[in-house]
């Protein structure tokens, strides 16, 4: 028996301009705000060897000026209109977005179009942003305990090829080697309108917005769109383990990476793994919380998630389900691993308990509804669904799709984790005393 869950029902319209730019419109007049997002089909998996961190550095350069906008003026225009903005670099896309009062829609569309035509990048601005990115890496990775663990340090254990394994924040010397030619090449290759999705969500009339989109984006010249690369790697049969010493960390940590199905070819299996992470580590009633925190008391905290940054829907295959724990020095990694194995085996053999799947689905659906209530969250999700799956409607369909995943599929997902060669990374605490 499957409980029915409330689903979002945001009206959607899709369009495509002659230059290839895909458009997603989601008008909703709940609040007088509007979100604009542009997703480009390039992330750090696509950056060239010898230029680690370039996709992220280039994201910074998109704020450094364009034909009609001076250095750092993009943020000033958005904020002086009462809005907020940012950009972020993911494995398979880079997004740029604004959330503003509804009357600022045309401004936001103009600003995104101006830099889609071309950012204006100078050597001085490039040097400035290389320094800023280095400070970003110092604050988030080098100067803090557990910095970059495990999003930077697990991929080289789990994967063999450069696109999947390398550090997306980048090596300092490779960042410093970035040239204006690199930037021009990268823009030319990956920032074509046909390689992008423009999403508008919030308080606007679709007809009016489409006219503005035609006005500002219609004359951006079409360019060749790079064929979508496969980053496929075989799922290993044998376990691989590695360790690192974090000299700032007072307690050890552990990350386990598992490969999961490609959502494009096995959506049900993929969603079963997504539900599995909630079965394992969502709240005090979840299985690893109970086992590791409450019974064994072997960890300080445990979490699990699908995707590099915890969003299952914002990247493509291959991707990992990660289980992450921090633990006291006295509690050995092997004991924690054995307990995780036992819990996965129990799930695989005995299946879910009565009511377990229903309550997990209810919570997952309620989180989805909550995120979609925010026009910006809605725009980012719609854009990612359009870019990666060609189906923005998935935002509305997800609760039903999750309800259609049977308990057996979740048990099978647990079995699939046990059947493969997992990747284990131990972080040794270098600051214990």
């Amino acid at each position, binding site marked *: 028996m499957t409980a029915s869950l409330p689903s979002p029902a945001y009206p959607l319209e899709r369009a495509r301009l002659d230059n290839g730019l895909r458009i997603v419109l989601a008008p909703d007049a709940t609040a007088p705000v509007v979100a604009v997002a542009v997703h480009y089909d390039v992330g750090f998996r696509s950056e060239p060897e010898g230029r680690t961190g370039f996709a992220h550095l280039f994201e910074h350069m998109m704020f450094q000026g364009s034909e009609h906008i001076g250095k750092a003026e993009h943020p000033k225009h958005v904020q002086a209109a009462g809005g907020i903005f940012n950009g972020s670099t993911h494995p398979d896309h880079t997004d740029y977005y604004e959330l503003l009062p509804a009357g600022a829609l045309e401004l936001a569309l103009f600003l995104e179009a101006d830099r889609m035509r071309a950012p204006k990048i100078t050597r001085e601005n490039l040097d400035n942003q290389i320094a800023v990115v280095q400070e970003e890496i110092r604050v988030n990775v080098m100067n803090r305990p557990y910095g970059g663990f495990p999003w930077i340090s697990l991929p080289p254990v789990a994967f063999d090829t450069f696109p999947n394994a390398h550090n997306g924040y980048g090596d300092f010397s490779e960042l410093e080697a970035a040239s204006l030619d690199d930037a021009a090449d990268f823009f030319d290759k990956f920032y074509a309108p046909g390689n992008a999705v423009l999403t508008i969500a919030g308080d606007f009339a679709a007809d009016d917005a489409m006219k503005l989109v035609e006005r500002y984006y219609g004359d951006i010249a079409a360019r060749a769109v790079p064929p979508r690369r496969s980053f496929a790697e075989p799922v290993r049969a044998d376990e691989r383990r590695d360790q690192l010493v974090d000299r700032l960390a007072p307690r050890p940590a552990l990350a386990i990476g598992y490969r999961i199905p490609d959502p494009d070819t096995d959506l049900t299996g993929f969603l079963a793994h997504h539900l599995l992470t909630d079965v394992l580590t969502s*709240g005090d009633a979840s299985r690893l919380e109970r086992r590791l925190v409450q019974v064994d008391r072997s960890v300080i905290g445990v979490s699990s998630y699908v995707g590099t940054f915890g969003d299952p829907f914002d990247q493509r295959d291959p991707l990992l389900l990660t289980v992450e724990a921090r633990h006291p020095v006295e509690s050995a990694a092997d004991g924690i691993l054995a307990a995780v194995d036992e819990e996965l085996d129990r799930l695989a053999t005995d299946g879910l308990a009565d009511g377990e799947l229903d*309550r997990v689905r209810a919570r997952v659906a309620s989180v989805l509804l909550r995120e979609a209530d925010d026009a910006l969250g809605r725009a980012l999700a719609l854009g990612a669904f359009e870019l990666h799956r060609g189906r923005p409607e998935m935002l509305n369909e997800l609760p039903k799709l999750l309800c259609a995943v049977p308990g057996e599929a979740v048990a099978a997902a647990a079995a699939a984790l046990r059947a493969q060669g997992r990747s284990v990374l131990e972080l040794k605490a270098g600051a214990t005393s």
Partner: protein
Amino acid sequence: MTTMTERSSLIPAVRPTVPADLPTVVERTLANGLRVLVVARTSVPLVELRLRIPFTALGADNTAQAELLAETLFTGTAKRDRVEIATAVQALGGALSTVVDADRLAIVGSALATHLDPLLGILAEVLTGASYPDDEFTGERDRIVEDATMALSQPAVIAREALVGRMFPGHPYGSVVAEPAVLAGVEVGSVRALHAARISPRGAILTLVGDLDPAAALGAVEAALGGWAGGEPESMPAVPALTTGPILIVNRPGAVQTNIRLGGVARDRSDPGHPAQRLANTIFGGYFSSRLVDNIREDKGYTYSPRSGVDHYQAGSRLTVAADVSTDVTGPALLEIFYELGRMAVLPPSADELEAARQYSVGTMALGSATATGLASTLSGLAGTGLGVEYLRDHPAALTKVTAEEVLAIATSLLAPTGLVGVLVGDAEKITGAVAALGAVTTVLAAPAR
């Protein structure tokens, strides 16, 4: 000149946005003292719940007890154990979590809107009957000791502890993270006693926002929580007057960055100078378009995320300036921060700067209440400081009237570098020389990890 005009005319004008109607807040104060605010918002079939309980932490023992109370509140009642409580909440599509600071204990939750009644039932069961089972308490205490140890290894936490310790010596605001050694000594009996004394509806405020019928929701709250009882809250002692003095360097040998933190006294939200203060802070370092970001990020490349902000607490408000800068530019970065502070304190902002900060402040307030979660948190926070929903209308109106002279007048007291205290967490051997050239310095060793 012609070129400039043509260029700027290409950039589309922003049309005025008709503000959202002020949310209708239906309010009732129960006989036991609990104040209840309800807003119907039908955009998503969820309900958001915020409960604030005045919770004056008085000293280190009290802070540690409060932390453990918050972490173990949902670990058992006479009727249900920890897993049964969590199972019941999750089945509602729900979540309930607890956070505590020196001023208040907050329970934050949500659920599918059809499940408001059972959500309130679980909340009431815990508020009136949390049992803090011995075994659960002991396990959680050991875990929180480890957790606090990890938190205190983060440079941002070390810097915050050092700054509040410098600003509020001897006051409950002088520490945020309880000491692991103090946490380890807390007995379950003291937490049960703290619950009996402080988990009280007197002065507490429950805010519900979501797809609900206000009258029915009020009835459900009355039915679930009408029987909750307790004493009057304690009041927070006045904060000590800020005494300026040498810059404190907390030595973290080998650090590749210095965490620069400056702190000062700010005005409360009820102060007539609050709107001008908000704009002064915004122009200085309160948003990306600020002078601080323009200077030490976009011009000099010293730092990634420099910022300033005003925090409002029950017993006073404070300004914080923060920048994490590369070790080798610590002196130059501090110099530029002092320069920008001084410029705010002695010169008025330009008309463009003032207008941009004004539009940003008004616009982002509207963005903040555009979601059910945002509206619930905003209303709950306002209510906790004695402000009502009218603030969402009156504060933007006040912001539109602030003049450059008013911003200067506020900045002279808020941002003058001579009125601030400073804490730097970094490699003392490498940074002391340059910092000492800018002002007197004292150095202490960072507490090692345990």
